[in-house]
């Protein structure tokens, strides 16, 4: 409880900070007034229509990735599972890119997160078919590598086939993720699906605990494993799908934060969910503040930072898990 409170405070602080960081040089007082709609209408526009949705999305998407990572690890019973590593984000990006390039999105905005959700769903099902549940780390990672590279190649293919010559520039956005210049439109298309995913996972948290002992034991403990599996697959697909649809692929967040927080919360998957969501929200907020401070005006991609932070942790975990597979 204390941990949750601390993380929530951190998120609140970083959200506030995020509202005051940007490329434009606006005085602090003017910025504050602008959030209440007073002052230069252009400043109001920037604060309310650019910085506010950006901060909101950072928090939402971070939380979604942390939640999805923690749930996926519990589900696959492997601490290395993460939407980015097992290829779910890449497939979500593929769905989103197809939705954008075919122009469906122009007719029906919800098509963006829904197609991304569809992509994410396909990847989870493919992962289960390839690696199975409770998969050994090597199998899981190999399957993830295969799925990720297939999806990344297809994303590039779709963008290369696009009649729009600028589309190819988008590959970096989809592969590395960014929150630059997002709007409330993005919040509104992502939010319903993020909430649905979070609800599905939240409802399966007790089952997730039982699943720690394997599916048979979970079933004997009164868990409807088949329904649980469905809820978790759909839930993680909703979360990583909607997050990727609006922010691109931001890797390693769902891996690093649950891994670090597990030392504090203990191993019970249900107890990890909320802290992981808050911690990841804080991480994305901080990273998004950092990209604006480190290289202002250059649109440094968010995923670059998270990958730089995440890779060492990931390598450490791979190193540690080597013994277990033999």
């Amino acid at each position, binding site marked *: 409880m204390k941990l949750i409170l601390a993380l929530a405070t951190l998120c609140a602080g970083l959200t506030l900070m995020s509202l005051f960081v*940007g*490329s*434009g040089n*606006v005085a602090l007082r003017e910025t504050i007034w602008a959030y209440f709609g007073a002052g230069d*209408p*252009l*400043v109001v*526009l*920037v604060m309310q*229509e*650019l*910085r506010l949705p950006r901060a909101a999305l950072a928090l939402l998407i971070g939380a979604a990735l942390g939640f999805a990572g923690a749930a996926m690890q519990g589900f696959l019973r492997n601490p290395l599972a993460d939407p980015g590593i097992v290829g779910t984000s890449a497939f979500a990006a593929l769905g989103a890119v197809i939705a*954008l*390039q075919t*122009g469906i*999105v*122009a007719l029906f905005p919800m098509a963006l997160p829904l197609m991304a959700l569809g992509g994410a769903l396909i990847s989870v099902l493919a992962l289960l078919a390839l690696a199975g549940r409770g998969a050994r780390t090597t199998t899981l990672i190999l399957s993830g590598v295969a799925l990720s590279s297939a999806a990344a190649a297809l994303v590039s293919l779709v963008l290369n086939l*696009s*009649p*729009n*010559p*600028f*589309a190819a*520039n*988008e590959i970096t*956005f*989809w592969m590395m993720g960014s929150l*630059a*210049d997002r*709007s*409330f*439109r993005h919040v509104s298309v992502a939010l319903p699906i993020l909430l649905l995913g979070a609800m599905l996972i939240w409802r399966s948290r007790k089952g997730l605990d039982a699943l720690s002992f394997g599916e048979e034991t979970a079933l004997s403990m009164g868990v409807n494993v088949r329904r649980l599996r469905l809820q978790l697959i759909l839930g993680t697909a909703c979360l990583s799908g909607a997050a990727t649809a609006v922010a691109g692929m931001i890797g390693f967040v769902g891996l690093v934060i649950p891994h670090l927080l597990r030392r504090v919360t203990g191993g019970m998957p249900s107890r990890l969910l909320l802290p992981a969501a808050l911690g990841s929200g804080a991480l994305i907020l901080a990273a998004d503040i950092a990209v604006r401070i480190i290289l*202002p*005006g*250059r*649109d440094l991609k968010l995923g670059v930072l998270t990958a730089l932070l995440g890779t060492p942790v990931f390598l450490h975990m791979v190193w540690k898990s080597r013994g277990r597979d033999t």
Partner: protein
Amino acid sequence: MRLRAVLLAGLWLAGAASGAAADPAQRVVSMNLCTDQLAMLLAAPGQLISVSYLARDARSSAMAEVAQNFDINHGLAEEIAFLRPDLVLAGRYTTRVTVDMLQRLGYRVEVFQPENTLDDIRTNLLQMGRALGREAEAERMAEEMQQTLLSLREAADDKPGPETAVYYSSGYTAGARSLGHDIVTTAGLQNIAPKLGLGASGILPLEALILSDADMVIRGASYQGYSRSEEMLRHPALERMLAAPRLTAETRPEWTCGTPLTLSAIHDLRAAAGLEPLE
């Protein structure tokens, strides 16, 4: 050190020799959107046999209709070799490997620098004239262009026009030392990018664009395929900024490559900004 100097001198001589070929080329293939257009403007009938596929795309080529009269290529070495050209026209940023390969195969490749200013157009026009053996035509076209350019610059110097921001897809802008910047300035507008310290082609954050309170916003022309990079051109905050009385315009294919046609885009830009037309 000395060896290197000798080599460099040799290369320079070879380059100079290829630039001044005795007989004009008979089978010319262009593999770059910008050389396509200069070549179509200057080549003698039958001299140019193929242009790049982009030349036919009205969204990036100012001469898409003319390009229908030529075969197209996709800039692949093999494809170009089969056309048996005696001169290949390439841009500085045409894939290096392809150009090397063609040169190794013994084809004469004339490489053009991209036009970063309106003055570069004249340089490239004259280079194209020499390459095609059409010096007189090039000379005449350059002279004509120079006259228009002078009167445009005179008019531009008269009084400072509206402050203008250029916003391409993915948030790119026309920074100082870019063709877009020269187009905007010559049209009599003040480009805000240099003031914001943006170089040749910097990224203009939407936030900075809105806070700049520019009098005029020129957006990148939209392609049909809906995409994320163009989504930014329709950001609700930008739409709201533009809803206020503010001048707007869109870029045109003439902005992509510097050719004599670019000058007509400048005239149009003046009109969009409400500046009085030149005769």
